[in-house]
């Protein structure tokens, strides 16, 4: 975080890519619910405790989750293979924003978002890493999110467990 500070929390996220809905809860290690928010086209905060109570935080969090788990917004404008064998799909959202989705030969994947030609946000998913409690369902064991635009921050997400929900 800005100023070199760091903190660890537990996140619980219920995602429907079909309906593009998100329900996200952040819990302290001691079990206290710090944030409970829903995205259904707009962000609704059910509960928020400082510093997790701002609309800006909620929007940023939902944007990060959408970037990781939902298809990129915009049109597919190109595909190709990089020199290291990774496959890449390029999406263009508007005249300023480009998103590259990259799948490595070992099935790790990466999303890079460029704005005005500069990398401003990226996601790297490590599919080979194991979940802490062993329940994984093809989810990556670790995801790293890096945001360059101010104030700038980095998130490392370690998977505790992932479960499919039969709705």
């Amino acid at each position, binding site marked *: *975080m800005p100023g*070199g*500070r*760091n*903190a*660890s929390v*537990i996140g*619980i996220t*219920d995602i429907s890519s079909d309906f593009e809905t998100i*329900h996200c*809860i952040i*819990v*302290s*290690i*001691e*079990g*206290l*619910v*710090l944030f409970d928010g829903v995205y259904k086209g707009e962000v609704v905060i059910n*509960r928020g*405790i*400082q*510093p*997790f109570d701002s609309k800006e935080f909620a929007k940023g969090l939902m944007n990060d989750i959408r970037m990781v788990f939902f298809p990129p917004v915009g049109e597919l404008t190109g595909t190709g293979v990089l020199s290291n064998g990774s496959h890449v799909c390029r999406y263009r959202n508007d005249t300023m924003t480009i998103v590259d989705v990259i799948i490595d030969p070992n099935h790790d994947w990466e999303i890079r978002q460029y704005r005005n030609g500069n990398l401003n946000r990226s996601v790297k998913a490590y599919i080979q890493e194991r979940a*802490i*409690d062993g329940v994984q369902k093809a989810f990556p064991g670790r995801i790293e999110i890096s945001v360059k635009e101010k104030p700038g921050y980095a998130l490392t997400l*370690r998977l*505790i467990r992932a*479960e499919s*929900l039969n709705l």
Partner: protein
Amino acid sequence: MKKFNNFNILLMLATVLVSFIFVGWSKDWDQLRKDAGQINTIRADFIQEKHLQILSRPLISKGVFYYEAPGSLRWEYQSPIKSILLMHKGRVTRYIWAENGFRRDSGLSLQAMQIVLEEITMWLRGHFAENPDFTASLEPDRKIMLTPKKKAFSAIIRNIELIFSDRPGVIKSVTIYEGEKSFTRIIFKNVRVNEVLKETVFGAPEL
């Protein structure tokens, strides 16, 4: 209205839990005060269940707790996230396990943690009625119910239920209710009182 942040709430919870967990059951507050004065050291394993409507089954955390009078504390989570909260000789630190070992957590206010230490000391001396944040009531079946006095706090924590075991000096569980379908239950096991603890228990982990 006073705004509660993450740390203030944890501070209150830590104060209340540590204070009550090991004083033992009694039918009156006077006896509880006397029992509290007999505690020198504590060691206990704990299992924490986080129940949420969004979860198909509770999130389980496990760890171990140490206390030594007058003010040394180690609250250690061993899974799923390793973390250690230490209070010793007036210093308060917290460590989180990263990829290659523990790193110091800079997200906490050390000044606020100092207050935790002072509050715990007060409670462990048996001054239960002096906590301004909770109303405490003795109930049947070895239960104590704690209810927040302030509206701003009760919006976050509805109440805290402590169940004592039939073994003197040992609590069975603590349940913190945040909403109808959101609560945290901490179950204590292997509680050992007044055993000698190694001083390294309250030292920083290797970084």
